[in-house]
């Protein structure tokens, strides 16, 4: 392998910074990426990934990898995020396994061409839509759920017949190194590669030219990726975090609401793209909600969450500092608020008396801090939500189906869930993605397969029946035109469409 070029001053500085923060410096330089991309392209052009058997074998290998190395994943995520084993197994490993198994059992169906309704003139032809792989795709995951965010899209890319280069986040270095080590042991070595490029190097990698780029992360990074993709005319899927609002109505089951909210907000120490970011609570129930949340937190994590084996830590000092600053400069602490820098620990915290202009309302909360704002009714909540950028999720808790319906139809977001949180992003039958500032495109289940496929329209005709086709040829005659228009109107009535013959 050729020696990497000597780092530019900027790169040297970044590497130095990483060492200072105590993180490993293993990384893939752009030159290596060029070589890996070339190998993947050669493998794709040779047709390796096209056969159903190949794709099934790769999907099955993903499942095996997760099963055989469960302990390694639990360990790596424990080191990176202090993630409890329960969370790793349920929200990372099982999630990917389910997607892979779902793809495995549906692959044959998905790969079938779809026949479309024919019309008068094409009755003797075959009209179908064929699903084709795009080529070599780039998948870049973020650090909040490092395994899931790389492997779930990978499942879709494999199922659709592509080759892929995966870039797990540099922030969760133990997990990325584990993936870097394991993937070559299970998946085809020419078709699938893991690179360890930092977030700041990603735009450069994107410009090497892929057939699709799938990126999960925050808005600023998403913007840089979109601009790099624009320069190379590359289609992208962007799943971008944002502030997910949650409205709690005066008519709801407070105890259950608090439990579901607390679970959604504080698992993974709040580092989730789909957790409720802030609460818009009806003034009438605010005190009760805060009280109920306090009880839940006690119930979940005990009197000292630091001792709890069910609670995580911030991924690194940068995120820790950011969350702590937001916490200190916003609202009033109703519960929690303790921080310990050496452990990157922030206690599960509830903030009240939060103003719209507070720092915590100006950026995504990627930590275990839950601001609770007060509103007088659902109108105010809807107006508030619509003033912000479209988020990944909107949540609403209420017994009143009219209120729920209004929250759903008068706001826009990637997805919506009433009386619970996060679950809508876990169903394989539902597309998961953003809209507006929260991204473009979607995945999960069949939608992953579609994201990484091209739907090619095919019309297979014969050369017989020129006796009908000739009507459209020059020399143009009004008589022929009338005949064709007549046939058109005829078919409009019978719902079979006929354009040019």
């Amino acid at each position, binding site marked *: 392998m050729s020696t990497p070029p000597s780092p530019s001053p900027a790169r040297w500085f970044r590497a130095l910074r990483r060492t200072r923060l105590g993180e490993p410096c293993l990384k893939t330089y752009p030159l290596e990426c060029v070589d890996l991309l070339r190998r993947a392209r050669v493998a794709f052009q040779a047709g390796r990934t096209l056969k159903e058997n190949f794709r099934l074998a790769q999907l099955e290998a993903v499942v095996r990898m997760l099963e055989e190395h469960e302990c390694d994943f639990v360990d790596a995520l424990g080191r990176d995020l202090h993630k409890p084993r*329960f969370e790793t197994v*349920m*929200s990372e490993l099982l999630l990917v396994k389910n997607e892979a198994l*779902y793809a495995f059992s549906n692959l044959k169906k998905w790969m079938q061409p779809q026949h*479309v*309704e*024919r019309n008068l003139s094409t009755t003797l032809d075959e*009209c179908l839509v064929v699903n084709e792989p795009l080529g070599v795709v780039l998948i870049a995951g973020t650090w909040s759920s490092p395994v899931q965010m790389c492997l779930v899209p990978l499942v879709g890319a494999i199922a659709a017949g592509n080759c892929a280069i995966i870039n797990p986040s540099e922030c969760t270095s133990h997990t990325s190194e584990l993936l870097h080590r394991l993937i070559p042991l299970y998946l085809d070595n020419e078709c699938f590669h893991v690179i360890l490029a930092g977030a700041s190097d990603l735009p450069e990698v994107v410009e090497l030219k892929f057939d699709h780029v799938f990126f999960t992360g925050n808005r600023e990074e998403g*913007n840089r990726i979109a601009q790099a*993709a624009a*320069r190379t005319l590359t*289609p992208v899927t*962007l799943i*971008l975090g944002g502030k997910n609002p949650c409205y709690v109505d005066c008519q709801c*089951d407070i105890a*259950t609401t608090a*439990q579901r909210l607390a*679970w959604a907000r504080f698992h993974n120490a709040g580092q989730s793209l789909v957790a409720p970011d802030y609460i818009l609570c009806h003034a009438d129930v605010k005190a009760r909600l805060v009280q109920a949340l306090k009880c839940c937190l006690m119930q979940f*994590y005990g009197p000292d969450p630091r001792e709890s*084996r*069910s609670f995580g830590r911030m991924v690194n000092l940068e995120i820790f500092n950011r969350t702590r600053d937001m916490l200190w400069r916003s609202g009033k602490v109703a519960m929690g608020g303790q921080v310990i820098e050496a452990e990157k620990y922030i206690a599960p915290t509830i903030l009240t008396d939060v103003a719209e202009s507070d720092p915590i309302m100006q950026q995504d909360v990627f930590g275990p801090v839950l601001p609770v704002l007060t509103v007088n009714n659902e109108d105010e909540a809807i107006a508030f939500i*619509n003033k912000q950028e479209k988020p990944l999720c909107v949540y609403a808790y209420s017994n009143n189906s009219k209120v*729920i319906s209004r929250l*759903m139809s008068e706001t*826009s977001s*990637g*997805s919506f*869930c*009433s*009386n619970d949180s*996060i*679950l*809508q992003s876990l*169903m394989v039958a*539902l597309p*998961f993605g953003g*809209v*507006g500032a929260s991204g*473009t495109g*979607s995945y999960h289940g069949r939608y992953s397969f579609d994201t990484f496929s*091209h*739907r*090619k*329209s*095919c*019309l297979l005709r*014969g*050369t017989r029946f*020129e006796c009908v*086709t000739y009507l*459209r*040829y*020059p*020399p*143009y005659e009004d008589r022929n035109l009338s005949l064709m228009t007549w046939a058109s109107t005829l078919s*409009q009535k019978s719902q079979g*469409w*006929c*354009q*040019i013959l």
Partner: protein
Amino acid sequence: METQSQVVDRLRSAFHSGITIPEQFRRTQLTKLMSMIKDNEEQILNALHKDLAKPKFEAILSEVDIVINDLHYAIANFRSWMQPEYVSKNLATKLDDCFIRREPLGVVLIIGAWNYPLQLLILPMVGAIAAGNCVVIKPSEVSAATDSLIAELIPKYLSQDCYAVVRGGAEETKALLQNRFDHIFYTGSQTVARSILQAASVHLTPVTLELGGKCPCFIYGRVNIAAAAHRLVWAKFFNAGQSCVAPDYVLCSPATKDVLVPALREALEDFYGKEPETCPDLSRIVSPRHWMRLMELLKRSSGKIVVGGESNQEDKYIAPTVVVDVFEDDALMKEEIFGPILPIITVDSLEKGIDFINRQEKPLALYVFSDESSVINTVLERTSSGGFCSNDGIVHMTLPGLPFGGVGASGWGSYHGRWSFEAFSHRRACMMRGWALERINSLRYPPYRDDKLSWLRWTTSAKSSCSLM
């Protein structure tokens, strides 16, 4: 006189007021759009003739009828497209409602092209209206007469609060793109697409790109040469070759070329007579600049002209021309031709032909003429393109059931029929839960215990459609 930004802001307020959401509103606008075309057919045909010398027959087929048909299809079906799509539930969500809503995106921008100035603007607009958006359309200034006609007619028929026409050239378009849109739909060239994408990426605006490409036409194996030649000539010289899905060049064996050229000559004579210049059924090149570009290509080509080659600068006329002895590095192979010039490249085998095609960028369409289904299937499976058609050209894009769009360098996204509606909609996943079964739910709560984990694993193990229940 409103500025562009004021127009966009005004449309955005209209969208926020919710006026475009009700089904009745959308139906009314679509019906009015249909009236607009039917009432003004004469004027439309005149404008198209002025811009491209488009014969009435071609204009009706490829501009008027195709749009009217799509409108009929949309009006008849958009209600069902608007309905929530319920999805299969699993054990834990049996008591819930899980569905996908199609929601409008907001204010969308559609940029048209000059080769089919009405179709390429109005067909996407049908989908955008049906999906409940406000729409800004920007017709191509190159097809000036149609541009001006559209700008006059649209405000007369459609709601001026929700739909606006913005006119101008490259400078005005650049300024327009500074505004934020919720989706941009662009038909045109790769170069311009790049700058549109860059402007769009600033606002994270999703884009549908319908770009051209060099659409290969492979003629191989046993084939009915006379029929193939007629269909090829029709597809190639329709609109004087100025179609993004026109067969750009032919690939065939030397033997096939020898029978193809006379067959093409015959078909051309059948269609346009002995003096194509005087035939009213042949269009003209859209502008002097494009005429110069095509003449330049012909001049720089090292191929041999075997049919046509005549031209008339004043009339922007180029005769239907066939060029042989063209190789991969020829001037005619360097860019999309977009004119009435057909190069024929010879290859020795199916393999070599497929390799040739795969060395180029992915085109918008790929054509194969053959009576041997094995040839067709091989090319279909081993190449990639936006669309594919065997034993004919162009017509695959007239079926509203088939999505029309590119892949790779020919773009992404698709439209026509229901696909237009989907292109301008957001698929929002919705889950409506109840309060029941909290005891089962509580399995996922901390404090985490191994026995809870085992339970959850067991419930999610058998063909799960939802992790974490």
